[in-house]
C-alpha cells in the first residue's frame, strides 16, 4: 500500500496560519488556540504526575513552528511547568517507522493522514487510540480509525468568480465542464487528489457512487478523458498559494481548490467576485497518530487529543485558519457569516464525499500518469 497522506495540504494549512498571524487577523491567543485545534500544537492536558516530562508534538514546519514554540509551548510551560516542544520536521510515515523500529521514540503525537495511519497500524508502529478517553462521537464519521483519529478537516471545493462569469455561476461539476454556458479558465490541482472526483461527477455519476465508478480501470480512464476534453481551459495549480494567486489575478473564473485557501480568498477578493460551493466537494481529514512507545505515555497523549475535540477550540480553528472542525457539533458555534465556509457544517457535509485513502493507495500513481498525459498530450 502506498502512503497517500497529502503532505502538501498539511504544510499549506500551517502556512495559512502564519499568513493570518502576520496580517494581524489572528491574535496571539487566537493563533495558539487555532494551532492547537489544528493539531499542529498539542491539546492542553494536565500532567501533575510527570512534571519533568516533555511532550513533543510534530507537525509540518515552516515559520509556524517557530511561532508556535514561542507562543504556545512557552506559555504552556509557564502555566503547568510541563515543557512542550513543537517539532516541525514533518512526521512522515517513513520517519515514524524508522523511529519506532530503532527503539528511540522521541515523538508523542504526530499530525498525519489517513493513508499513513492505516499503513502504520498494519506495520504495528502506532498506539491504538483509547476511545474511552477520546470521544468517537466528537469526530466526523469515518475518521475514527483504530490507531488514528481525525484532528481537523479541509475540503476540495468549487470556487468561482461571479463577476468574470457574468453572474452565471456553475452549480455542479457538470456545469464546470460546460464551457459553452460558463466560459472562462478553470484551475485544477497538479495532482489527481480531490480532482478526479470532480471529473467523475461531470460524467454524470452521482456523488455517492464516485469511488465505485472509479473502481475499474475503464472508469478511471473515462474520468481522465474528461480532463482531456476540458484541457484547453485548464491552468493547473501546484501549491495552495498558486491557486490563490490565480483567483486574485483573475486568471481563472472557476476552480477546484482547498477550502482553506477559499477561506483566505473570501476576504481578499472584492464583494461579488468570489463564491464557494461545497456541492460535490471532497472532504479530507487530518489524522492524529501516536508512535508506539511514545515517551510521554499513551494516556497523557489521549487526554490531549480529547481536549482538542472541544467544540469551542474547534470553532476558533475555522475562524482563524479556515480549516474545519473535525467535531461536527462545533458547527453550532460557528458565527453565521462563516457557516457557509465550514467544511463540516451539516449542510456542507451533506453535499460532500469523504476522501477515500484506500482508493488513492491503490490507484493514485497510475492515475497521475494518465492525468499528466491528458493535460499535455
Amino acid at each position, binding site marked *: 500500500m502506498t502512503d497517500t497522506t497529502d503532505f502538501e495540504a498539511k504544510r499549506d494549512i500551517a502556512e495559512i496560519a502564519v499568513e493570518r498571524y502576520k496580517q494581524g487577523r489572528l491574535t496571539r491567543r487566537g493563533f495558539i488556540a487555532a494551532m492547537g485545534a489544528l493539531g499542529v500544537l498539542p491539546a492542553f492536558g494536565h500532567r501533575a504526575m510527570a512534571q519533568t516530562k516533555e511532550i513533543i508534538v510534530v507537525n509540518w514546519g515552516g515559520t509556524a513552528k517557530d511561532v508556535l514554540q514561542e507562543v504556545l509551548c512557552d506559555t504552556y510551560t509557564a502555566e503547568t511547568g510541563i515543557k512542550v516542544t513543537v517539532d516541525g520536521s514533518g512526521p512522515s510515515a517513513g520517519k515514524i517507522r524508522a523511529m519506532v523500529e530503532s527503539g528511540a521514540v522521541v515523538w508523542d503525537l504526530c499530525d498525519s493522514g489517513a493513508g499513513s495511519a492505516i499503513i502504520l497500524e498494519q506495520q504495528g508502529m502506532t498506539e491504538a487510540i483509547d476511545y474511552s478517553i477520546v470521544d468517537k462521537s466528537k469526530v466526523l464519521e469515518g475518521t475514527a480509525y483504530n490507531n488514528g483519529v481525525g484532528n481537523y478537516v479541509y475540503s476540495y471545493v468549487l470556487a468561482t468568480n461571479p463577476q468574470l462569469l457574468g453572474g452565471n455561476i456553475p452549480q455542479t461539476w457538470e456545469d464546470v465542464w460546460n464551457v459553452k454556458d460558463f466560459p472562462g*479558465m478553470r484551475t485544477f490541482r*497538479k*495532482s489527481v487528489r480531490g480532482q478526479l472526483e470532480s471529473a467523475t461527477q461531470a460524467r454524470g455519476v452521482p456523488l455517492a457512487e464516485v469511488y465505485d465508478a472509479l473502481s475499474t480501470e475503464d472508469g478511471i480512464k473515462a474520468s481522465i478523458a474528461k480532463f482531456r476534453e476540458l*484541457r484547453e481551459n*485548464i*491552468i*493547473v*495549480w*501546484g501549491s495552495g498559494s498558486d491557486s490563490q494567486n490565480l483567483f486574485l*489575478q*483573475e*486568471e481563472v473564473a472557476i476552480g477546484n481548490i482547498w477550502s482553506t485557501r477559499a477561506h483566505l480568498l473570501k476576504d481578499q477578493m472584492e464583494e461579488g467576485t468570489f463564491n464557494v460551493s461545497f456541492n460535490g466537494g471532497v472532504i479530507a481529514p487530518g489524522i492524529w497518530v501516536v508512535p508506539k512507545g511514545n515517551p510521554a505515555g499513551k494516556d497523557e497523549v489521549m487526554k490531549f487529543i480529547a481536549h482538542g475535540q472541544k467544540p469551542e477550540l474547534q470553532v476558533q480553528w475555522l475562524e482563524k485558519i479556515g480549516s474545519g472542525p473535525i467535531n461536527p457539533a462545533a458547527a453550532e458555534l460557528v458565527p453565521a457569516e462563516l457557516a457557509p465556509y465550514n467544511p463540516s457544517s451539516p449542510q456542507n457535509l451533506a453535499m460532500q464525499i469523504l476522501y477515500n485513502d484506500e482508493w488513492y493507495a491503490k490507484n493514485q*500513481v497510475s492515475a*497521475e*500518469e*494518465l492525468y*499528466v*498525459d491528458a*493535460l*499535455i*498530450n
Partner: protein
Amino acid sequence: MPRVNEKVSYWMLVLPALAIMVCFYILPVLGIWEIAFTEPETGVGNFVKMAGSNAVKTSFVITFRVAAITTVGCLILGYIVAYAISNFATRLTPLMVALVILPFWVSVLIRSFSWIVLLGRSGLVNDALMHAELIERPLRLMHNELGVLIAMIHVMLPFAVLPMLTNMRGISGVYVQAARSLGASEWTSFRQVYFPQTMPGVLSGALLVFVLSLGFFVTPALLGGGRVLMISEYITYQIQEFLNWGLGSALSVVLLVATALVLLIAARFVNLRATLLERK
C-alpha cells in the same frame, strides 16, 4: 624532459577547476546514473516504464520544440542586435553591450515573475490593449506555450548575442568594402561575404541557447500553466510528488543522452571544433 614539466605545470593550473568538476559534477551525475538503474530495483525497469509512457514522450517533444523555437527566436533577434552593435554603434557601443548583459544581474525567477505581471489576463499588456480598444477580451498570452516562448527568448537572448557579438567584432570591414567596390549590392555583399564569416558565432550561440533551453525549469514552470511540461519539470514532479527517484533519475539520464546526441548530429553538419574552440 623540460617539455613534460611544462605540460605538468599547465595541468596543475587546471587542477582546482577539474577537482571541483569531478567532485561536484561528475560524481553526482554518476550517482544519478546509478539510481536510474538501481531504484526501485536493479535493471532497466525505469527506462522500460518511460518508453511506455505517452506523457514522457510528449514531454520530450515539448522540450525539444520549445528549445528549438527559442533558439531560432534568439538567433534572429540576437543577430540583429549583434550586427547593430558591431557595425553601427560608436560611442554608444559600451552602453549597448551593457544593456545586453544587464539582465544577467536580475535573477531568472524575478524576470519570469515580471512576465506574469506583463502577460497576465489583467496584466499590463492586456490592460493597455483593452484600454486602447484594440481587443475586446483579454488575449491568452501566458499559461500556454506562447508565454513560455516569449519569456524564454527574453531570458536566453544574451546567450545568443554575446558569442555573435564577439565573432562579428573580429570581422574586418575591408572584405565587405572590397565586395562593394567590385560592384556587389549591399545585400549581396552581406549575404555572400559578411554572413558566412559570422556563421561560427551563430552556431555557437545556437548551441549555447539550445542546450541551456533543454534543461530549463523556472520559466516553463511559472508561465506554462502546467500544460507546457518540459522534462526538467517532469523530473521535479516525479521526485517531489511521488518520491520516485528512480524514474526521475532515468529521465535525466535520457535528457543528458539526448542532448549529447543533438551535439553529435550537429557535429556532422558543422565543424564544432572550429565553432567552439578555434574561433578567431
